């Protein structure tokens, strides 16, 4: 099996989808000829033609609205928002339209599509190239929200997302596009080639939406993470020697409550992590649900490890980011409480 990084895996997923189904179309700002600013759609216009992979005007509402209209006619659009930070101009089309077409028409129309966006920080992008706005979308009925953490999942989840028939917000942790990250600011970039999930089949396969994965078994505490932080959590467990069980959520809406509860009932101690600002982030949902679900198993307060309630700062990025050391401290706190 070839080694791929996340960008290559996404590119391969889209290639597979375009190849198999003429109803698949892909578009976004710079997504056509140029292949996207991160190269996720590289060479696809050349291979499939101008009307299947194309550039859009810089209007995110237009991109989302066009996706809704196309999906209503039976196409299967994958729309790229250049950075998750720029999804807000599209949010009315997503929250009030895309997510509700099936519901408000009682199933007469649907809006199955994928909205992809590079997401998260750790790349010195400053406040407008670093956001993790997943919490907003998990609060919207009718949307599915996915955040892969490795090349294998990225491809399998993207294919599953488009094939689900319902809209999916697909956030891509850009910090780990080219290699996993251990949450230590100056660590040199590692390659996906050395990671088990860097092996990616060429053809069609899916990774089931709504299913989490225990990526490290442990007894001392449960760590819930997604995207970049899955790797930071793993590095923290190794570095600290704390026997953490680490769960990669993969799908945030709907999240996999079963896998989560099973682990928490075993460990009784939990860290939930997110890069986004703390208040009302997705970690809050997890903590709220877990304390309800596993109340009597909990032996310590659930620890929310998050970004601060500030815009993502540029120069002090690492003071904001949940680094390996902050992760290790969090694990220590919950295991010692």
């Amino acid at each position, binding site marked *: 099996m070839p080694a791929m990084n996340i960008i290559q895996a996404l590119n391969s997923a889209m290639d597979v989808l375009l190849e198999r189904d003429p109803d698949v179309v892909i578009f976004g700002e710079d997504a056509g000829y140029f292949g996207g600013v991160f190269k996720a759609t590289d060479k696809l216009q050349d291979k499939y033609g101008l009307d299947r992979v194309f550039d859009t005007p810089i209007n995110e*509402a237009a991109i989302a609205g066009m996706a809704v*209209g196309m999906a209503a006619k039976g196409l299967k659009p994958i729309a790229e928002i250049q950075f998750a930070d720029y999804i807000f101009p599209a949010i009315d089309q997503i929250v009030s*339209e895309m997510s509700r077409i099936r519901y408000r028409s009682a199933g007469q129309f649907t809006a199955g599509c994928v909205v992809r966006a590079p997401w998260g920080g750790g790349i010195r992008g400053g406040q407008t190239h670093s956001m993790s706005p997943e919490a907003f979308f998990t609060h919207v009925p009718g949307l599915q929200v996915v955040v892969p953490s490795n090349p294998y999942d990225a491809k399998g989840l993207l294919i599953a997302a488009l094939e689900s028939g319902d809209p999916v917000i697909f956030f891509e942790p850009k910090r780990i596009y080219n290699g996993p990250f251990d949450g230590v600011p100056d660590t040199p970039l590692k390659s996906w080639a050395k990671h088990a999930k860097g092996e990616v089949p060429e053809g069609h396969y899916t990774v089931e939406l709504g299913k989490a994965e225990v990526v490290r078994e442990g007894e001392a505490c449960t760590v819930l993470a997604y995207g970049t932080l899955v790797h930071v959590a793993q590095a923290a467990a190794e570095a600290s020697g704390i026997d953490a069980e680490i769960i990669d959520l993969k799908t945030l809406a709907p999240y996999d409550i079963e896998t989560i509860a099973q682990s928490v009932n075993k460990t009784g101690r939990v860290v939930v992590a997110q890069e986004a600002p703390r208040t009302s982030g997705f970690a809050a949902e997890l903590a709220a649900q877990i304390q309800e679900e596993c109340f009597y198993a909990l032996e310590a307060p659930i620890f929310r490890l998050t970004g601060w309630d500030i815009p993502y700062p540029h120069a002090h990025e690492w003071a904001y980011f949940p680094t390996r050391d902050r992760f290790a401290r969090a694990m220590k706190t919950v295991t010692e409480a």
Partner: protein
Amino acid sequence: MSNGQSRFHVPTPPYRPGDEPDFTHLDLQKAGAAPRPDPAVGWEETRDLATGLVGVLDHNHQAVGAWNPELSAEVLREGLSHMVLTRIYDERMLKLQRQGKMSFYMKSTGEEAVAVAAAMALKPTDMVFPSYRQQGILFARGRNIVDMMCHCISNSRDNLKGRQLPVHYTWAEGSFFTISGNLGTQFPQAAGYAMACAYKGEDQIAASWIGDGTTAEGDFHAGLTLASTYRAPVIFNVVNNQWAISSNQNIARGDAPTFAAKGLGYGLASIRADGNDFLAVYAATQWAAERARQGKGATLLELFTYRGDAHSTSDDPTKYRPKTEFDRWPLGDPIERLKQHLIGKDEWDEDRHAKLEEQMTALVVKSYKEAESHGTLHEGPLSPTESIFEDVYAKPDWRLRRQRQDLGV
């Protein structure tokens, strides 16, 4: 400070309650005067059409000029009948709303031509993305009236399972998209839909409607930008009924001459037409549809009309505009004008008209009886309560399954 003198400009309507509206100064292009270019012309050739006014019916109710679609008397009578039905239906539903049978209603009084003529000029399979004020399309497309009413009273037969406010219809079978409560969102959607039609190599086109006030929304710009870039086969209708709830068209339009003129800035064919002239609306739509089907892209049509009644059952228009404004409005009433045109052609008479009205009233009354037999909002039966958890996704996930249990349904 409160001297009424603004230090920046805030447009005010020409008339407020108590004023005597006088539209004699309005310089509207005469019916028949506008030339009709070939539908395949460059958009530049529509410049004058965007600031003029395409009209067919003159002040004597005669069809004149190049835009006359030369419709048979039969087709005209059909149009008249749909418009009469629309108006009677609206009246009746308003009354029923006042009686508490439904939570809300929105009439289209005075704007019937905008919906009916357009629907008749389109193919029945062309996908329409209306706002909440084009119920006329449904009549023109033969939607079952009982079904329409069942939606409005949210009963057990509401095809939307009680999920939407009244008049926010959906009818996929009739190529009628699901109406949104959020203004303007349908414009980029219609562009996307139209692109998908072109993509599939089909002859189908899309048409969408928004109000004058809604042109201010970002989605208006989104829709027109998409259409301009990709030459999407779509018709964008701006129904300029001159009011957006309480705000006059000049709040959205500002210093622009017409709403149609906005299309020129996108390189789109742009036409302003007399929205109360059935023939003009028909002809302009036909032109735009032909253009779209020929692969020449989108047209922006401004249909100049007047909102004859309240915005909805939630407002009282006498609070912000003169009661007499509709009567004084020089473009009149679309039903009256088509009726007089047919009478002038000896294809109609007052008796037949009275009879038509009677028939339609009877149909509406009878339909409502039947609709009510399937329940009403307050007395039920409604769609089953558990149906609120359906259609959120293709399949409910654990959250919805548990929540349904929590509710005990």
